[in-house]
């Protein structure tokens, strides 16, 4: 898996490409931690290249929800396939984070 990070104005876009499982969740964790440390308004996760996610990957996002709320940062997912969305819903994370269709929606939510 590869994670691209791009700073765009007041937010950071992270783009995990490939399969996010127990073998590479630490990499995603490091990238998200670094993005949060930039103290921007939030982090948008571009899921267009995310082919698979297991609980190890979901756990990374869940573990930063509280810290991001305290720092007034938003975590928004966009371009998520139905397959990945189903996993978010099955575990119950879909209610804890924002999932939108397109990047401009994610940016609008973070910049609110």
């Amino acid at each position, binding site marked *: 898996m590869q994670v691209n990070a791009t700073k765009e104005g007041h937010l950071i876009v992270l783009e995990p490409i490939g*399969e996010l*499982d*127990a*073998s590479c*969740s630490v990499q995603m*964790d490091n990238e998200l931690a670094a993005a949060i440390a930039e103290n921007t308004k939030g982090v948008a996760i571009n899921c267009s290249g995310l082919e*698979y996610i*297991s*609980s*190890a990957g*979901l*756990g*990374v996002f*869940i*573990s*930063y*929800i*509280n*810290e991001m709320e305290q720092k007034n940062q938003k975590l928004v997912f966009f371009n998520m396939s*139905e*397959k990945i969305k*189903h*996993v978010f819903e*099955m*575990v*119950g*994370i879909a209610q*804890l984070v924002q999932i939108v269709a397109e990047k401009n929606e994610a940016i609008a939510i973070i910049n609110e």
Partner: protein
Amino acid sequence: MNNQTLKIACKLDNLRNIREYIASFCASKRLSEIELNNIVLAIDEICANLMIHSNKCDENKELELKLIEETDGLKFEILDQGKAYDTTKYITPDLNHYVKTAKKGGLGMMIVKKVMDSVEFSEKNGKNICCMFKRV
């Protein structure tokens, strides 16, 4: 009936190979993309747990996957010789608690229980066996 066995080292990089193997085994059942992903995910979760917690990612240790096609569904047996999983310790996770405490692991078994119609752990001849059945 189509039955297959895979022996694979307890190395997290092998999870991808396990997923590919399961997906190819399930191909004859003509599952939807979401149904197939659920099954592959549940097996991945069990194998990751066994590799990390029971076998401490010791590459000299193996998992043995037995995939059995039955008339009314798919049976998956995963055997290992690590530390047995204590099912009595399983508590359905409270997601709010995970958020508050920034806990990362432990959601895998929830996925397995949601996806599979049955999940049983047992021990035979010094091996731990996780047996799962999915009606399809």
